[in-house]
Each structure stands twice: as structure tokens, then as C-alpha cells.
């Protein structure tokens, strides 16, 4: 047999190259042969587990195949964004994290690569069946691009046993002023078996992070209005950031930053902080991270900013979008209805996730009245459902993450000012800082050539 002219090594390299090219061409062809009717990408493992039985039933009833893909949230967002922009292969249905819709709607409405669901929502009269305010964050320029998965009302979880022993009557904590007043007395209040140097009234992140937005929403403020304009330098925001600085800095503070993970569990178990901000999804975290305090925890509505005011807010959320490349949009819509808005199905799922579904008919089902041993026998489903109607409306923008970061930056400067100067000139300084940070976001938005067309559309 003749030798290969360039030697055996080169021949081996050539063979490897031919095999690689062959495999690259053949594998996608083989994959296409078994392609499902719908592909749905989800970032939450809990959601995947909860959807699987519904999807199996849906496949039998509709004679189709649905593939559920679990993808890390950041990866899902980045890959989806890039794939939609270059016209690459994308899933038919995606579950998006709340606050990220703006990334995908940064274009003229007709150029948005997600399916406009407005007409379907209206023809199915979904706004009557679902908590209407939850469509806000999935709407851009009046058009709905995703369906809300949840309501995520917020309550306060508290160490019931310690509060009782410390003489705190939670029924009287109806406003934040009353709450703070009680919190200030805790400094000199000790229990004989305390394992911590002192108790703090509430877990407040030192940098504000997510809580600033949550409290701003409760106070009637917003990061962006319905037209996508920056509004986080409002008077409500100025007052809130001054208040937050007072509660987390100085001699009269009532908040302590418990942190996350093990630090949070330790704080809860030791009773370092008595109260914790707790949306429905976080109740599961309490149960799994601190099982030793089962029966010692309870939930109460958030204190209002003024007597008779709103006693809840909202934190987090996800929504279901159908991409424009979906070849079977009617089937995708049918699956969305089965997953999100079938009352019996979502009610049956509640005990697995503790997440309140936005479809109101589901709340009449027994799981929502089931008492929780962990939360001192309270029917936590009912407690959250009772607050759902009061959950504030929220809007999204392509610049939500920048605005959130700037809000936190403004707070950091305000907190430093408060630590150095106290109340003197605090309000004016806070207003100046918020204006400066909001103007930075406006400048960023103003130079965005793609958003300018979208904004002009919104302004019309």
C-alpha cells in the first residue's frame, strides 16, 4: 500500500478533520428527526418539577410532544437575547424573570421577537380572571408580551415565640412608624436565654438592594412609569431612602442585615432579627433553611406607610412568553393556559411551591386554607391571597437593572451623608443624589439609538 505523501501524522489529522465535519453535519440532522412539537425553556427547577405532570397530561390530551428544558436564568436570558437578535434557533416558549422583559422589547413593537399576546389575552378575558395589576410588568407600549406566573404578595415573617416573650403585640404594628417605635425599645430588652448580644427588629439589607424597590412600590413609587420614563427620583423615593438610612445607620437603628444562606438561617434561629420581609416564594426558603424553628414563626401583613394604607408589596416573579419563531402558537397558548391558568391544576401545585397563582378562581380550592405547621398553624395561602388585590402595579424597562443599581448607589451616598451629618440637610441631599442618579439613567437611555424609536412610539 502506498504511503500518504505527508506522513502518518498528517493523515491522522486529516481523518480526524473529516470525522469532525461529518459528525457536525450528521448530528443536527439526527436531532431534527425527533424534534418535539413545543420546546419550553425554564430557569427554575421547582417550576420544571411542578409542570411535568401537567405537561404529561397535556401531551396525552393533545397528541403532541413537549420538551421542558431547564436553563440557568442568566444563561437563558443572554442566550435568548442573542439568539433572537441573530435569528438563531430559540425555544417556542420561555419563562422570563420579572424585570427582564425590557431587554427583549428594545425595538419597535412590530420588531419585538416575542409574540404579541394582547389580542389573545383580551379574547380569553384573562384580565378578569387574573390579578390585573400583574400584567403591568409584562407590558410594553400597551402591548402584552408575556403572561404573569405569580402575584408574589409580601408579608412579614416573624419569630412569634420571641415576640410574645418580648411583649410585642404584632396586631398593633399597623404602620411603619409604630413598628420602628417598638423596634427602638429592643436595644435594652434582653431575654435570659438569649444567644445574641441584642435583638434587632427587622432584617434590612445594609445596602438596601431589593428591599428599596419593594418598599418604594408599597409607598406608591416606581422605577419607571407605564411609558418607560425614569421616575425613581420622586418625592416618595426621597422620603423612603431617608427613612431607610435612619433604620440601618446610627444609634437609633432598628434593622440589621442578616445576609443570605447560612448567615440568614443563623440569624433566624438565634433570633438576631425578629422580623423578615417574606414574599410567598420565600416561605419555602424559611422551611428548608431553618427547620428547627418550625412552629415558632408566623406571618403578618407589612405595616403601612400611613394608617389604613397598603399593607403589602411585591418581590420577584416570572412570566411566560411565546417566541415569534414558534411554529404552533395556538398549541403554545393552549399549553400556557394549562400551566398557568387552570384553577384546579395551579391550586393542586400550591403546596409544592407556596407560590400564589394569579388566577383568582384557584384561591377557592382547599390547599389555600390548609394550615401550615411551620407557620404556627396559619393558612398561609389564604393570608397571601387576601393581600393579592393590593399588590402594587409595576412596570419594566430595558434599563431596569441600571435603574435598580443607581437607586442603590444613591442610597449608599445618602447613608454616608446621614452617618456623618444626621438629619441636617438630609432631605435636600437625598433629593439631589436621586436626581443625579436618575439623570445618569436618562442619559444612558437617551443615547440608545434602538430605544429612541421605541420611546418615540410610546410617547405617541
Amino acid at each position: 500500500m502506498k504511503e500518504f505523501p505527508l506522513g502518518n501524522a498528517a493523515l491522522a489529522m486529516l481523518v480526524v478533520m473529516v470525522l469532525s465535519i461529518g459528525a457536525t453535519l450528521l448530528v443536527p440532522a439526527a436531532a431534527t428527526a425527533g424534534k418535539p412539537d413545543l420546546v419550553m425553556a425554564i430557569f427554575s427547577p421547582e417550576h420544571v418539577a411542578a409542570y411535568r405532570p401537567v405537561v404529561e397530561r397535556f401531551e396525552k390530551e393533545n397528541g403532541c410532544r413537549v420538551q421542558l428544558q431547564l436553563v440557568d436564568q442568566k444563561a437563558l436570558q443572554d442566550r435568548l437575547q442573542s439568539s433572537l437578535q441573530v435569528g438563531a434557533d430559540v425555544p417556542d416558549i420561555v419563562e422570563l424573570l420579572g424585570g427582564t422583559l425590557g431587554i427583549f422589547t428594545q425595538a419597535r413593537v412590530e420588531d419585538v421577537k416575542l409574540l404579541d399576546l394582547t389580542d389573545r389575552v383580551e379574547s380569553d378575558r384573562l384580565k378578569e380572571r387574573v390579578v390585573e395589576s400583574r400584567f403591568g410588568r409584562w407590558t410594553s407600549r400597551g402591548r402584552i408580551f408575556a403572561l404573569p406566573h405569580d402575584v408574589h404578595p409580601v408579608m412579614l415573617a416573624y419569630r412569634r415565640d420571641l415576640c410574645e416573650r418580648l411583649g410585642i403585640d404584632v396586631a398593633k404594628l399597623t404602620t411603619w412608624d409604630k413598628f420602628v417605635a417598638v423596634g427602638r425599645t429592643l436595644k435594652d430588652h434582653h431575654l435570659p436565654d438569649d444567644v445574641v448580644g441584642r435583638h434587632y427588629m427587622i432584617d434590612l439589607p445594609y445596602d438596601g438592594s431589593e428591599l428599596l424597590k419593594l418598599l418604594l412600590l408599597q409607598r406608591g413609587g416606581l422605577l419607571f412609569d407605564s411609558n418607560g420614563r425614569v421616575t425613581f427620583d420622586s418625592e416618595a423615593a426621597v422620603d423612603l431612602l431617608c427613612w431607610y438610612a435612619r433604620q440601618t445607620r446610627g444609634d437609633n437603628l432598628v434593622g440589621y442585615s442578616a445576609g443570605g444562606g447560612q448567615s440568614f438561617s443563623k440569624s433566624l434561629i438565634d433570633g438576631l432579627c425578629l422580623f423578615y420581609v417574606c414574599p410567598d416564594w420565600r416561605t419555602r426558603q424559611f422551611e428548608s433553611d431553618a427547620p428547627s424553628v418550625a412552629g415558632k414563626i408566623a406571618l403578618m401583613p407589612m405595616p403601612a406607610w400611613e394608617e389604613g394604607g397598603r399593607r403589602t408589596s411585591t418581590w420577584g416573579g416570572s412570566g411566560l412568553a411565546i417566541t415569534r419563531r414558534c411554529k404552533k402558537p395556538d398549541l403554545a397558548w393552549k399549553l400556557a393556559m394549562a400551566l398557568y391558568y387552570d384553577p384546579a391544576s395551579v391550586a393542586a401545585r400550591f403546596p409544592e411551591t407556596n407560590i400564589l397563582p394569579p388566577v383568582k378562581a384557584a384561591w377557592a380550592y382547599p390547599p389555600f386554607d390548609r394550615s401550615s405547621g411551620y407557620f404556627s398553624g396559619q393558612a398561609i395561602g389564604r393570608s397571601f391571597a387576601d393581600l393579592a388585590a393590593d399588590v402594587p402595579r409595576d412596570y419594566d424597562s430595558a434599563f431596569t437593572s441600571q435603574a435598580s443599581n443607581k437607586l442603590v448607589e444613591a442610597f449608599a451616598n445618602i447613608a454616608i451623608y446621614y452617618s456623618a451629618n444626621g438629619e441636617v440637610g438630609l432631605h435636600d441631599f437625598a433629593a439631589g443624589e436621586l436626581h443625579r442618579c436618575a439623570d445618569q439613567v436618562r442619559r444612558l437611555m437617551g443615547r440608545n439609538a434602538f430605544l429612541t424609536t421605541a420611546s418615540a412610539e410610546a410617547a405617541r
Partner: protein
Amino acid sequence: MSQAPSEIAIVPTPQLAATGVGPHRRRLQMGGEGVAGYLFLSPYLLVTAMFFLVPLAWASVLAFYQTNGPSSRVFVGWSNFKFVLGDTDFYVAVRNTAVFAAASVLIQLPLSLGLAMLLSSKDGRAKNLFRLIIFLPNLVGQVFVGVLFSILFTPTYGLFNRLLQALTGWGLDQRWLDNPSLVMPAVIIASLWLYVGFNMVYFLAALQNVDQSLVEACRMDGASPLRTFWTVTVPAIIPVATFVVVTSTIGSLQLFELPYTLLQEHGGGYGPKNSGLTIVGYLYQYAFRNGDLGTGAAVGWLLTLLILIVSVVQIRASNLFGSTK
């Protein structure tokens, strides 16, 4: 005109004749050797062209466009550069990066050199074990160290704060990652743990090359250890020290993963008041979070220019220092 190698006439020697390879085949092999060489080089050349030269050229073009992801773009001329150079956050990032780079050179490298000198001494049975222990953190990478130190720096319950409290009676409730003036020290502390051992290895190698007869001569002439170090050791390790200083500075100017992972839960990802924002963090924010690859490319070019200037200055300074010795 010179002959092409393939056409060089080969006179068959008895040895060659014995192999049975004729003149025609030998000519093919001579010409083929050149082709084969390039073929063997081709994977490297292809990868370099595809993942270095093409992106480099493409980044130069992109810097003059505003993009919304990889496919939509609008020509904006110098606007990206003007925006970045007029953005206060960019200067915050430059200041933070400069502080870190300075700390790398002024704290990390002397520590590395000190450790190397300690561990290069002849006595000490456990010195290999210590070398390994000090080098080991480098194996785990910045992301691991970022996550690890975010737990260690936890107020009240964090191991670092507890150690501080035990040693000094201070620091149990210090919020390293929430206090703007403590964020960069925290990043530097974490980076010390990571990189001191790595640079120590370079200095250990350099110290092996110090002429021991000169050290001995100095000692016999009554020179103090400090003078011996300054007049004999330092000039001998200058080439390696220059290399370490330049590579450490370049690495510091490219800092990203460590503060990014360390500060994930603090101040929106870059620490309060952007106190942990670095130039590459700023680039990442624009290019990959905002989807504007054009502004990201502009930041990339500004960073390249900065690295070039700093490196040239450092190399010239070390040459000057070396020549005065």
C-alpha cells in the same frame, strides 16, 4: 536568483540509495516538508486568526457602532468613546482598578518576595510543604475565591471577622462588602490569598540564580544583610522582578471575576457606590448586560491603550533602575 528548495539537485548517496527512495520522491519530500510544516501549524494559525485576529479587527470596527446584540447596529462614529470618557462611572472604575494595581505591586509583590526569601533558605525541613500550601490557593481560581471570601467576610458570623475579633478585639460587625471604603481592601485581601503564592514561585526561581559567592563575599566584607540584599540580590532578580511587576500590573488592570463574584449580593453587583467596579466590569456591564457591544469594544480599546502605556513606563523604569545598579 536563488533556487527554490524543492529544486535543489540531490546527489544520491549510497545510504540514500539503500532506502530505495528515488530522486523524484525526495524532491516531493523536500517541497512537502515546507507544506507539511504549514499544515502542522495550521490549527494554531486558524485558531489564532479566528479567535484573536478577526475579533481584534472586528472590535476596531464595532467601537464605532452602537449595537443591540450581535446583529443590529448603527454607526455612531466617536460617540462611544465620547460617552465613556464623559461617564463618571468609567472614572470610578479606572480609580478602583488603579488602586488594585498599585496594591498588587506595592503589597502583593513584596510579600511574595519576602515569602520566597524565607522559603529559599537552606535550613527548614518543611519548606517544600509550605511552598505547596502557599501556592495551592492559586489552583482554585478567582471565582472560587470570590464566593469563598463573600462567606468569610460575613458580619458577625463570618470566619474572617471572628478571627479579627479574636486577634484584635475589633471587627466582628465590620461590613467589608457593604462599606464603600472597605470594599477594595476586601478585594485586595482576597487577591493576596490567591496570588502571593503564585508570584512567590517566580521569585523562588529568581533567587536560585543569585550568585552565592557574591553573597558570601559581601558577608565576609562585613556588609549587613540589608546591604547584601540591596547590592547583590536585587540586581540579580531584576529581570524576573520586571516580568512579575509587568504581568501583575496587566493582570490587575484586567481584574473582573474576583470582585464580580465577591460582590454579587452587594450594591447591585459592584459594591456600594460602585466601589468594586473595575474597567473590565464596566466593559462587561455595557457589552453583555446592556447588549451594546460597540461601547464595550470602545472600553476594550481604552483599556488596551492604558495597559500599553503602563507596561512601557514600567519596563523603561526597570531598565533605568537596572542600569544604575
